[in-house]
């Protein structure tokens, strides 16, 4: 029987398509209406840290330099109170083969796909991950298809995504470039069915364990360089894998008291599926348009159970503005001689603000950089923003309005972070979990799971459920 290819028919088959395209039986980890055994899934499906190191060494991934940003640290000290201004380090992940930490995620997925005999890999991504999958597939001799959201309805491509498509093609991938819309997932499912390729999802245990080596290296190398584990690690947060894998790796390195701080670019007010908002963003990842939805409901991903569960691991969640990231990108180039990003520098902005609160003998680590290039570079993005009618000016970054005004700070002391309320995000997660349970009775196991998945307590979960019941 030939299966139908209409939107509704393909979406109805999504579970079966995904099961054969990732080779994981997620159902066996289910322990309740909501609950599942996350650690068992990570242990059984993923690889050990040693195995991941070995896989990554085969394709030259990881072991990137940990760089002390001496001039930026000095600048921060000059604008801080006496005795304040932590040492700032950055893990130069742009030294990976395709230029970002995403190679770590891709390496394990592509290794697994090859080991299991899949003829190729597919990923749905408009970001650096596409180039990473394509690069790793090239190294292991697998075919690769990347599906991107590239254009608005006028056929105008976001320059950063055009660049990432070019990089995928450079590594030999077939690139499918779509206009705006979440139905990208439908195109993706049809390709998986047609080709029998492996779904190199960002959200499998393979992808997340691939990042654990980054957290491990950050912990171990900081200890070696400074005699202490990092006091804080700042992670640019979008889909949640970066926070999850880094935090897990830090723990495996023995760094148990490091504060894990997630940072996203504030794009509040812009709709991620809007044709008209699409090209009014100057960031295509690392922003709140992914960061908040994936924190408040990780299982919105392209696999049934997301291995990236950021609320379990983030101790703090902050946002910064687009203009601050461009300013700091310029700072990194001019003061440290490193032209990187800009999107990957989101966490560096937060580090500069947070280092000012910390003591001089403390250490803060920014755990990634990414390559820069045509389309991505601040000049490219700001020129494009102007063409799209977005105002660009110097001033107080507090005057930033996503999609309307980008404000480049006048002075580094204006760099600050906005705190998001983790209790509110946890409540929002619990609300989403209850909605997905669809009225099924929750067991004690479900409540315990929600407490773990939100890094809160059984008491907090129960109080939230009572509060939500009163609102309805």
């Amino acid at each position, binding site marked *: 029987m030939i299966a139908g290819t209409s939107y509704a028919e393909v979406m109805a088959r999504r579970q079966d398509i995904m099961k054969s395209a990732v080779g994981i039986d997620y159902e066996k980890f289910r322990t309740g209406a909501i609950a599942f055994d996350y650690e068992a899934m990570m242990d059984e499906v993923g690889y050990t840290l040693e195995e991941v190191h070995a896989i990554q060494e085969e394709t030259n991934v990881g072991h990137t330099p940990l760089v002390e940003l001496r*001039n930026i640290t000095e600048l921060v*000290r*000059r604008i801080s109170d006496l005795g304040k201004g932590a040492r700032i380090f950055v893990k130069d992940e742009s030294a990976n083969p395709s230029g970002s930490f995403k190679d770590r995620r891709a390496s394990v997925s592509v290794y697994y796909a090859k080991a299991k005999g899949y003829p190729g890999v597919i990923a749905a991504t408009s970001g650096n991950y596409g180039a990473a999958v394509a690069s790793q597939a090239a190294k292991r001799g697998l075919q690769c298809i990347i599906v991107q959201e590239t*254009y608005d309805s006028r*056929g105008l491509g976001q320059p950063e995504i055009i660049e990432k498509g070019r990089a995928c093609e450079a590594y030999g991938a077939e690139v499918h*470039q779509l206009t705006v*819309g979440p139905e990208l997932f439908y*195109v993706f499912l049809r390709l998986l069915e047609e080709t029998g390729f492996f779904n190199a999802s960002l959200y499998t245990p393979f992808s997340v364990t691939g990042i654990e080596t980054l957290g491990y290296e950050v912990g171990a190398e900081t200890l070696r360089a400074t005699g202490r584990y990092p006091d804080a690690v700042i992670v640019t947060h979008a889909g949640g894998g970066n926070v999850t894998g880094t935090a897990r790796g830090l723990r495996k390195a023995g760094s148990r008291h490091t504060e894990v701080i997630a940072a996203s670019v504030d794009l509040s007010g812009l709709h991620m599926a*809007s044709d008209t908002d699409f090209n009014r963003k100057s960031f295509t990842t690392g922003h709140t348009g992914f960061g908040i939805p994936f924190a408040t409901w990780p299982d919105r991903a392209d696999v049934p159970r997301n291995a990236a569960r950021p609320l379990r691991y983030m101790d703090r969640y902050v946002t910064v503005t687009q203009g601050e990231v461009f300013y700091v990108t310029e700072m990194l180039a001019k003061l440290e001689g490193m032209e990187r990003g800009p999107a990957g520098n989101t966490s560096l902005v937060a580090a500069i603000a947070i280092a000012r609160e910390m003591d001089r003998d403390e250490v803060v680590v920014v755990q990634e950089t990414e390559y820069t290039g045509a*389309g991505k570079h601040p000049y490219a993005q700001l020129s494009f923003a102007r063409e799209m009618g977005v105002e660009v000016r110097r001033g107080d970054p507090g005057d930033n309005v996503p999609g309307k005004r980008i404000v480049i700070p006048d002075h580094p002391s204006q760099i600050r972070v906005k705190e998001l309320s983790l209790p509110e995000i946890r409540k929002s997660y619990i609300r989403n979990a209850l909605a997905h349970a669809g009225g099924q009775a929750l067991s004690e196991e479900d409540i315990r799971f929600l407490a773990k998945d939100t890094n809160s307590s059984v008491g907090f979960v129960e109080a939230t459920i009572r509060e939500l019941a009163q609102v309805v």
Partner: protein
Amino acid sequence: MHDGREGRVASVQGRAGRAGDSTRAYAGDYVQIHSVILRPGERAPQVPEDTQKVPLELRIKGFLDHDACLGDEVTITTVLGRKAAGRLVAVNPAYPHDFGRPVPELLHVGEELWRLLRVRGGGEGEAS
């Protein structure tokens, strides 16, 4: 066009890289094709209003299977050897992205920051 830079809009734009009719393409040329995946009205229900009004479109590149003119329905063979069909929209399409123009709001940032490091002194970092 935007900022005088042609080719950023993905539309009929290419030339075959050989003399003669620039709307003509030949078997084996590297081309881009376009197709509509979902028409307005077929879009997913959760899509916002502005996106509901426009189709979901797909562009793919590959090698043309047969001679054709821009705008024709054609088939291509992709770099992976797979077949795809659609309307021929560009021949050997350029990458339209670039580094843009220098941004005046950023041009003085380096000098400002170095001044802060140099003038106020007293720190113990590397800056001098």
